[in-house]
């Protein structure tokens, strides 16, 4: 065999190997990105679920504390901002706003013993607390998937492929300090 042919074969082999590596790397990136998006959809589900609970909660509180107009309109405004938000970043911001407005709404209930004893208010509070725990769980799972994504695209040689495809690190969903205090029904 001629020397040229051998070199050609070697080059071809290298190209095939590299190609296989690139393809599997690409597939891995697609999979990981899909995973992050799927996790985010779960977070969104729970945010939506909480937004759905709010009108009922506001109505119940209004029944006992009708003059607290400011808080009601704050909550309504924060809720519509969350529903209008489209990108994950916007949703995270809007969610923090809703957290604090809701905190104030629930703080009001402390001043109304009859409201606190209302069965449907207790049920709504349970639903709300449960949903906030779900948000916390889905947030944790989302952050884990972001962590995997971010590490993968920073490691060699995946970083070369990732930068060629314009893939960037994704942002974590951090809990707002006020969101840490999940409302608890205490006795």
């Amino acid at each position: 065999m001629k020397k040229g042919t051998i070199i050609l074969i070697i080059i071809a082999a290298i190209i095939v190997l590299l190609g296989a590596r690139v393809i599997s790397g690409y597939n891995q990136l697609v999979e990981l990105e899909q995973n992050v998006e799927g996790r985010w959809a779960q977070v969104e589900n729970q945010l939506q679920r909480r937004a759905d609970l709010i009108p009922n909660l506001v109505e119940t509180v209004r029944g006992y504390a009708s003059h607290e107009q400011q808080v009601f309109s704050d909550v309504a405004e924060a809720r519509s901002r969350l529903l209008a938000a489209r990108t994950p970043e916007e949703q995270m911001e809007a969610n923090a706003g809703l957290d604090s407005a809701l905190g104030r709404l629930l703080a009001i209930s402390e001043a109304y013993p009859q409201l606190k004893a209302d069965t449907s208010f207790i049920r709504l509070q349970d639903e709300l607390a449960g949903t906030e725990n779900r948000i916390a769980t889905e947030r944790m799972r989302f952050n884990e998937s972001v962590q995997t994504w971010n590490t993968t695209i920073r490691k060699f040689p995946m970083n070369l492929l990732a930068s060629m495809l314009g893939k960037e690190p994704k942002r974590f969903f951090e809990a707002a300090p006020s969101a840490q205090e999940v409302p608890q029904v205490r006795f």
Partner: protein
Amino acid sequence: MEKKRKLVGLGIVLVCVFALTAAVWAAFPQPQGFVNDFANVLDRRSQSELQVLAEQLRKDQGIELAVVTVATTDPLDPKEYTTALFNEWGIGGPEDSGLLMLLAVAERAIEVEPGYGLEGVLPDGLIGAVIDQEGMPHFTKGDYGAGLTAMAKAYAAILAGEEFAIAGERKVDTGWLFSFFIFVLIVLLLRRNRFYPPRGGGVGGGGSGRRTVFVPGPTFGGPRMPTGRGSGGFGGFGGGRSGGGGAGRRF
């Protein structure tokens, strides 16, 4: 040289993280059966009653009920511990139809968490109402066994399709309301299909709809096969998952 040092440093950090994760992991005891009285606060009779209830639930409806008492959930708070334990044990079958009742003695906490598959039949508000009406009267007196048994009976009845009467809530005549609701639903569905394109992601309804890829994270065991560990030949739970819902109380 510099690089090597960095590598060694990274290695040490990784080992530490791993050890920490392992320590948190090891904090979860192995399941002994449906009833796990790790805190030794349940009397014989309650234990066997709970055991019978759980066996029946699994036999009749394929639902796995786990009752757990622990001395403390430290360093996690009771709710975090409950969610983590649920997913670590994998309570509930492939339908994610599991229910975990956890009582933490030091925290004076009761937490009840449904798997994804039971969120529809057992909304958080109902779970909380059962705790209030069936559990709390016993827990405040320190009778943990009676409280857990009464709650388990109520949940089993709800899961079997019976209605749970919530104290202080007025009963509405649901006959016409129901037909009206169905009517409105049909109208809404028809309109929605005609005018709006189907939306992805969107509204979070019942539990069964959110079955996406599950990646076992560092702290969660994820679905696993029955392992047969533990005493008394308990076959393990079926690999169910939960999303952190449910309700809890301090007593």
